């Protein structure tokens, strides 16, 4: 088992599945000779050739629409959107088409595409290279939304996503790409879509998070452990469909729930998780359900002090955890 970083795990999964299944191909802006602006597709052109590693024109609706057409005709496309911020021109294809194809044909057609996109901030990316857009899609039945938080999960979930018969949005936190390293088996394995992972067992408060924030939560939980506060930390991993049973069980376990995400608060992922808990296990709760999220502004500014103000960190999270634990 080799130690790889998060983005190498992605590349690994793509190469493995392209070897295993001829129907799989990748397409997107700069995915070919450049190997992707983040290098997620590095080496694929050499191994698989330009027919299966397609540099596309700069047109996201076209990319996703073409991928859907190819999927309807028997292929398994993995489309890269260069930054999740630029998925917006393709929203019509994703919501009107991909999400509804199985449903509207009563199962005659289905749409097995994967759309990969780097998201998230803290990289001096300013408004349009920092956004979290997962909450735009988690209201849309027919889609699956996956956000791995470790190299191991990145590979295993991407393999699951490509093998999934339904459309999967696969969001990779760009700050995780080279920040996170971990053991990644060289061979074929999958991590199931739709299942949380408990990252830390605890008894005082339950914290839900995903992506980069999960790591800050882990660090904060360690701080709290030294203060005698025991945090139960859940990595949501799949944001749609949510792993309802595990979420409810984890909330009930401590009676105190906090959801942490980088994306802005109002109507973010935390809203659905909180609503679910308050609806289903209300009587197990001992405290208000709390959310700690990005501020409700349109996107993250470029200026370093502003970016820092926007982003959550270990300290902000630890403070909020203490506030909840104190109930």
């Amino acid at each position, binding site marked *: 088992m080799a130690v790889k970083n998060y983005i190498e795990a992605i590349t690994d999964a793509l190469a493995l599945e392209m070897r295993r299944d001829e129907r799989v191909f990748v397409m997107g802006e700069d995915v070919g000779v450049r190997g992707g602006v983040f290098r997620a597709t590095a080496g694929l052109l050499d191994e698989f050739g330009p027919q299966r590693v397609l540099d596309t024109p700069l047109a996201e609706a076209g990319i996703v629409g073409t991928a859907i057409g190819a999927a309807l*005709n028997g292929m398994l496309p993995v489309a890269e959107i260069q930054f999740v911020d630029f998925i917006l021109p393709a929203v019509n294809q994703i919501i009107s088409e991909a999400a509804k194809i199985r449903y509207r044909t009563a199962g005659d*057609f289905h749409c097995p595409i994967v759309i990969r996109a780097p998201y998230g901030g803290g990289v001096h990316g300013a408004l349009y290279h920092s956004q979290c857009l997962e909450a735009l899609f988690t209201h849309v039945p027919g889609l699956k939304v996956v956000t791995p938080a470790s190299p191991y999960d990145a590979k295993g979930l991407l393999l699951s996503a490509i093998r999934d018969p339904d459309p999967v949005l696969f969001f990779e936190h760009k700050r995780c790409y080279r920040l996170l390293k971990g053991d990644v088996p060289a061979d074929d394995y999958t991590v199931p879509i739709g299942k949380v992972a408990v990252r830390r067992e605890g008894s005082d408060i339950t914290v839900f998070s995903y992506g980069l924030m999960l790591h800050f939560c882990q660090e904060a939980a360690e701080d709290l452990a030294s203060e005698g506060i025991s945090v139960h930390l859940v990595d949501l991993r799949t944001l749609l469909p949510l792993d309802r049973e595990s979420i409810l069980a984890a909330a009930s376990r401590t009676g105190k729930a906090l959801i942490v995400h980088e994306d802005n608060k109002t109507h973010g992922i935390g809203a659905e998780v909180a609503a679910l808990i308050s609806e289903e296990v209300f009587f197990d709760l001992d405290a208000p359900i709390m959310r700690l999220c990005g501020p409700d502004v349109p996107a993250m500014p470029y200026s370093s002090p502003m970016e820092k103000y926007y982003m959550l960190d270990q300290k902000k999270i630890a403070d909020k955890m203490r506030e909840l634990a104190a109930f």
Partner: protein
Amino acid sequence: MTPEKYRELGLTGEQVRDMYRLMVLARELDKRTWLLNRAGKIPFLVSCQGHEGAQVGAAAALEVGTDLLCPYYRDIAMVLAFGMTPTELMLSNFARAADPNSGGRQMPGHFGSRRLGILTGSSAVGTQITHAVGAALAARMRGETTVVMTCFGEGSGNQGEFHEAANFAGVHKLPVIFFCQNNRYAISVPLEKQVGGGSIAARGQGYGMPGVRVDGNDVLAVYETVRDAVLRARQGEGPTLVEAMTYRLVPHSSDDDDSTYRSREEVEAAKRDDPLLRFGRYLRNVGVMTEADQEALLQKTLAIVDAAVSEAEAAPSPAPESTLEHVYAATREEH
């Protein structure tokens, strides 16, 4: 039309008779659907009247069984040519469970059938155009000779997706026919308020493909144009943009009142150029059919329409609870 044009094009009498049959069938199904709508039996329809010539002419140039179709909502004659049955269309009109397009979930006119090579479409105009490009890409990757036909109105040719699709196909020289059925209106908006310069065909060269305008009410002219385009596509020479000029003889849909935006004179003038009448006349002129043949065909068609309506009307609706089905794969299916 020169009298012997159909032979020059390599078509047989049987073939042109069958093209005419499809046009009559489409027209009569469509007319009946209006009656059913006005009688309150079906809530909505969208019509193909006036477009039958363009559709049948184009479809005749394709190889049903091999080629794929990404249609739009007016393509009734087109999907009949691809093998959809009158009963199946009526099942869709009545939103019955057995509707092969959607199991009663989509409005009529939203065609799709894996069996027939008709890729499912939504109501959002233009999205099917990129699907056609993707389907052609897939075929090319597998080394198949499939050609993909995609249809849209001239109004929809102003959507960004048309541009993105045409450009992608142009870059990759994909076997796609972009078949624009230009009926001069997008609902109420006339051509001059929709299309800068007035010609969709003129857009072809901006994507490195031929753009051809053809009289869409001349079935054989459409056939010839599309046949050439199919040949190019099949030989790996890339896509073609075809603009078939036609007219919608009826309102946009059962919810529309076209008298608010078109003069009756204009509509009447267009009716005189009705492709069905024109082709019927032509077939009589060249001696391929007699008036009696055509009358017999009409009667036979009406019987087919009757039967389709009865069968569809009697068929069961989907179960209410089935609303919850087919959101995701029920099991981890093989795919």
